[in-house]
């Protein structure tokens, strides 16, 4: 008797044809548009040696800019997580006149050129603008401060949370909440223990996307930020400034640091999300 030896396969055969070309295309696409540019970024900063890179990224100004970029992006994503969830909730659970229009408005930050958004925000949040003028008497200034940076980042990241949560909420039947109510749970308890855990994975996705987008945002921020050194100057702007001085290595060095921090953040968030999503699916 001879045992039938099956060759070990790279993938199990599937009834759906086209795996080979599809994977091939995916790899080529990812390589040209993602992996190669990123590899170039990793290789770029070292032409003037490690010392130059180190001096650029430990410079006070760079550190402040990075802190502002990531800090404001994180806070903006947190704000968006809270208010985006509420907006998604309203759009899914209630019917009211103008709902479709409101739903379309959510995508506006995607559609608008960021510079246009920046000018618009700067106009109304400036001390002479509509909202700025209201806050001015209380000595609260939004435009040209880190607060202004955050406002712009909230603006650009907002649709991500809404769009991530909407389908999940639609999937969560009202019956489930009704069941909690018949079991004697208060509204607060129902939301905390029944609704929130169900939307948590989607919320984390929305949060990561919103934050990722905010970290790299340039166009809408520079108009409202005022770009005061060490105060309201974001990292992407600093990269531009290095480029304008023909310091390509320095620009790439800041870019590399941003890439690393972003990658670590995304991996961490993905990890948490995988943990959360696994509950109930085992």
């Amino acid at each position: 008797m001879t045992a039938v030896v099956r060759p070990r396969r790279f993938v199990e055969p599937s009834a759906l044809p086209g795996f080979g070309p599809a994977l091939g295309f995916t790899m080529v696409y990812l390589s040209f548009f993602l992996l190669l540019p990123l590899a170039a970024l990793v290789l770029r900063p070292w032409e003037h040696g490690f010392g130059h890179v180190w001096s650029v990224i430990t410079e006070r100004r760079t550190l402040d800019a990075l802190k502002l970029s990531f800090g404001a992006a994180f806070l903006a994503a947190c704000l968006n997580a809270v208010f985006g969830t509420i907006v998604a909730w309203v759009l899914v659970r209630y019917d009211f006149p103008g709902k479709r229009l409101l739903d379309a408005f959510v995508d506006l930050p995607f559609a608008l050129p960021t510079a246009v958004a920046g000018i618009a925000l700067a106009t109304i949040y400036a001390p002479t603008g509509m909202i700025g003028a209201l806050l001015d008497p209380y000595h609260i200034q939004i435009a040209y401060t880190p607060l202004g940076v955050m406002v712009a980042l909230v603006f650009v990241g907002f649709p991500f949370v809404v769009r991530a949560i909407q389908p999940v909420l639609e999937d969560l039947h009202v019956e489930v909440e009704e069941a909690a109510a018949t079991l004697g749970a208060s509204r607060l308890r129902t939301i905390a223990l029944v609704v929130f855990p169900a939307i948590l994975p989607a919320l984390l996705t929305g949060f990561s996307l919103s934050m990722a987008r905010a970290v790299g945002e340039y166009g809408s921020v520079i108009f409202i930020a005022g770009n005061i050194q060490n105060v309201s100057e974001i990292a992407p702007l600093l990269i531009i400034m290095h480029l304008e001085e023909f310091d390509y290595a320095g620009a790439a060095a800041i870019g590399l640091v941003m890439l690393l921090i972003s990658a670590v953040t995304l991996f961490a968030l993905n990890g948490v999300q995988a943990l959360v999503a696994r509950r109930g699916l085992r």
Partner: protein
Amino acid sequence: MSLEITNVNKSFGRFPALNDVSLLAEDGEFLALLGPSGSGKTTLLRIIAGLEIADGGAVRFGDEDLLAKPVRQRGIGFVFQHYALFKHMTSAQNIAFGMQSKARKLRPSKAEIKAKVAELLALVQLDDLGERYPAQLSGGQRQRVALARALAIEPKILLLDEPFGALDAKVRRGLRRWLRELHERTGLTTIFVTHDQEEALELADRVAVLKDGKVEQIGTPEELYHEPASAFVFDFLGDSFQFPCVVRDGKAVIAGVDVTILGAATPADGPSTAYARPDAFVVGPADGPGFGARIRDVLLAGPDARIDCVLDDDGAIEVRVPHAVAQKLAPRNRISLIPREVRVWAET
């Protein structure tokens, strides 16, 4: 204590869902609300639970005005058609949820909750599946978890909304018998909604048939089956055929033949409509009395043989006869058909 529903009204926009519905469920009774979709049966159930707000009327349990209380204070167990389990919680956590939601003073201790969960899991015969998530359970198992979850709050009344609607026929039958046994053991006043007449007649102590937001008839399964109050009830409880007839001296004259009218009340003389069950037909030779018909098919599988035939004056009909009769018949044969007994209601 009995559950008393008086003159409940409810409309959705301009669509009236319930129209002056009054019902009484005795203490410990198993009551079925039977009706086609849109008859208001689920709406009534949801009003009792507090998931829907009545436009008018009263729902009382003993001396207690149920409508005055919000859902979560009514203490009514509700089982949904699609289970409505909490997906991110295990069976045991689902069952414990209600007990943990009680006010601190009334909440049982952790050990008590754990014991109660184990007891309920045993009751619904899922002893070993407490740690499973809903996604890992079959439909029937999920519905039993949902039932255990509803029972965990020790409800005064148990409401079931088409509890077996999403399950396949065999599982349904098994669960049905099991639910009946469970009811006998717990003695809980139970109201369940279904559109399946077989289920209602088999399970319930009494059945209320609803039509267009009104109670058409309420009675024991026997009463409903033997004394249907209207053509609608008769038709809803099983297949039926209708023929024009003329009532004369307590008999229905159909195609020139005098046919016995079933039922206590004798309808007034005059033209009317007669209703017959498919198993109440006499099959005769081609030149016999009654309607002429041609056999399309003879189906010999099943407790009764079924004969599918086309009537000469248009229309198809499938009657059920004993196998002994059917064996002499074949497709394309010509026969005569006449109902043995019919029911006639005053035309409205």
